[in-house]
């Protein structure tokens, strides 16, 4: 009986082109589109204008060194700030570096402090990051050379001067996605969001359709059959999207595949029962998509991925914890991008168990909630039928 219902439900899905577009086409094509958008990962050669009033060998040496950084490209040399500001306003450059007239003189003065002004276009934070970080690195290097010169002039030995200038040099290592690319960071989170939202919208659509057609859909049997049908289809899709795509398209994938399979199970179940709960309130097949489309952005930001979770007000964070995406995305990033694990934990590998358990708790809670909602709906339906 239930088997027949599952088959029926699967047939219903594949006979519905609108749902097929959302379930299959969007789920499989969207990740590739996002990969294509963020293909280059890094932003390089951000155009910068130079205003060098000091026109000195020191400023030229600085610029020479900075121009060697891949992040930026010194494209324009201007004689005045006004000229450079014009370029920035017209978006021909995204930054300006300005050397005042006394730059060389201040450097030559053993007691002087030379200044450089740096102007960044804030229309995208990635411009600022590229310009600031690369300039800062050159600045620190040049600064140390100057300090060494000055200390040597004071009669210190070179070795002592170096020890003084940088008593503890630092060495930085970027973990997990060594390129530090924007796509490597965002795409894993987007993959999870695509699965979450397509399943969410699809279930709301199917629920709305069934209600339009006055199908008897509010029995426990139907609840289980529908959940099973969605699970079967989405398990296959998730294996492709979370398992295969990262390995084919150079998306971070340091996690073990069995961990990812294990994560998929409660993630899908939690989404399915969560969506079934919401779908009870959807009257028409189309109204769900119209009403809930903005939820994709809200879920993404609330989950604390592009904006750190530590900086999210508690009230929003508690709500976020009720959404399967929040735990699923963090667990996937921890496993897939950072090498945490569910099955292979040891003294050097973190466990993604807390998120995994949270997903199971959600599964249970949303299942019970869905049963309750279905029960009331059914009673309501029966009453309406009697009248």
């Amino acid at each position, binding site marked *: 009986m239930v088997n027949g219902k599952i088959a029926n439900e699967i047939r219903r899905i594949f006979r519905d082109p609108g749902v097929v*577009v*959302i379930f299959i086409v*969007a789920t499989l094509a969207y990740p590739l589109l996002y990969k*294509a*958008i*963020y*293909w280059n990962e890094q*932003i*390089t050669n951000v155009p910068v204008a130079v205003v060098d009033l000091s026109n000195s060998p020191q400023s030229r040496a600085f610029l020479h060194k900075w121009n060697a950084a891949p992040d930026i490209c010194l494209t324009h040399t201007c004689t005045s700030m006004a000229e450079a500001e014009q370029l*920035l306003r*017209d*978006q021909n450059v995204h930054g300006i570096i300005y050397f005042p007239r006394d730059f060389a003189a201040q*450097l030559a003065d053993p*007691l*002087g*402090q*030379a200044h450089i*002004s*740096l*102007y960044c276009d*804030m229309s995208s934070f*990635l411009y600022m990051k590229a310009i600031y970080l690369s300039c800062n690195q050159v*600045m620190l290097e040049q600064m140390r050379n100057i300090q060494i010169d*000055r*200390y040597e002039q004071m009669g210190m030995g070179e070795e*002592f001067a170096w*020890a003084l200038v*940088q*008593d*503890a040099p630092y*060495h*930085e*290592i970027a973990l*997990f*996605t*060594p390129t530090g690319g924007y796509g490597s*960071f*965002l795409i894993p989170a987007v993959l999870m969001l695509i699965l979450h939202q397509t399943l969410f919208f699809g279930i709301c659509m199917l629920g709305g359709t069934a209600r339009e057609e006055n199908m008897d859909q509010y029995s426990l049997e139907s609840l289980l059959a529908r959940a099973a049908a969605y699970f079967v289809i989405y398990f296959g899709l998730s294996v492709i999207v979370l398992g295969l795509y990262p390995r084919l398209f150079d998306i971070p994938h340091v996690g073990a595949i069995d961990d990812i399979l294990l994560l998929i199970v409660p993630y899908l179940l939690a989404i399915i029962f969560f969506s079934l709960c919401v779908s009870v309130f959807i009257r028409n097949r189309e109204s769900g*998509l*119209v009403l809930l*489309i*903005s939820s994709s*952005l*809200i879920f993404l*930001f609330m989950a604390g991925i592009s*904006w*750190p*979770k*530590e900086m*999210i*007000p508690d009230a*929003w964070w508690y709500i976020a914890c009720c959404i399967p995406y929040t735990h699923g995305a*963090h667990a996937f*990033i*921890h496993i897939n*991008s*950072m090498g*945490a694990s569910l099955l292979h934990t040891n003294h050097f590998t*973190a*466990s993604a168990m807390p998120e995994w358990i949270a997903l199971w708790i959600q599964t249970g809670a949303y299942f019970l909630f869905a049963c309750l909602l279905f029960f009331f709906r059914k009673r309501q339906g029966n009453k309406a039928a009697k009248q």
Partner: protein
Amino acid sequence: MKYIFINIWRVMKRELHMMFARPLYMFASVGVMLLSTFFFLTLMRGGTAEKMPVAVVDLDQTTISRRLIHEMQATPSVDIQLVTNSYPEARIAMQSGKIYGILVIREGFYSDLVDFKRPQLDFYVTNAYTVGGNTAYKQLLTMANLTSGAFQREVLRKKGLPDDIIMHRIQPLAVEGHMVANPWGNYSVYLVSTILPGILGLICLMLTIFAVGFELKMRTSHAWLQAAGGNYTVAMIGKLIPYTLIYIILGVGCHVILYHFAGFPVYGSHARLMFGLLLFIFAMEALGITLIGLLPTLRDALSIGALYSMLGFSLSGFTYPQMSMLAPIKALTYLEPLRHYYLLYVNEALMAGPIQNTIHCMLALVAFMLVSLLVSPRLHSALVNQNYPLK
């Protein structure tokens, strides 16, 4: 001429009646916009990520390393969540998302320091969370420079140099950063200024498709045309006026909330920025008409509309700049009205540029409206013949 106005009024009355009969319209427009505005304005706590939790791994375990850690903990911009003598413990904390950066003080740090052997500090920063990792990195830099500066100052003081001269010795070269048009580096200003108009555009697109497509689905398009005296243009205008009024109110409300109450900066012209937002709203409505005209089945048009417009947030280039995208993707960005609105916003609100810099954005948005006229014959015949599947 008089009849045209009477007919438009009749269609409008019919539309208003339908609109208030179903709560969906108000929920999906006013409700969603209010919720989104409230959400995005309250999400970011001041808009700058300052203190991200980091860990310190103290392998040296000497008085000086402990004093160092103590000093770092006292620094207000640093949030040390974990001090440990085991690197794996710190790494596990990072893998489970508790911290974003690790500073390692190696064994022998103290003895190397006193021998002037320049012991090395190691930073580990996570790249799996961009904003968290970057902020942690800045913090670790502060911590390292703190160590270095303090040491130099001590030595120079012992040599009898006064403090102001020491300052210049320690920092003979300084870079003054100026963040043009967003001097606080406020992430909220940057993000919300494009996301909220984007959500409004999303609403306009989806609801326009719904309003037109629902007539096709319910087979009520004949009644609709009849109310308009059989005139397609009158039918369209009458139907869209009530929605457009709602969108305009939402758009103006959004502008007032962002740029007056929330205090987001506008260095250029308020009027042109608001005009641009209205053009963007109309362009999204027109895109909705185009989609339902091309695909006169409600659910297909809605699915495609949703997929198309969600891409706009990435393709507009406000997070990941368009200059770094592949050539074919760059071409795609022009098909998203949000891209043109974003460019207009940058010029008007941030750069205070002349109108010549945005006229092309405005023209592009107008082009979306003109394109929607091209589908009129197809949409008209769909309304008359009702020859598309219901679902």
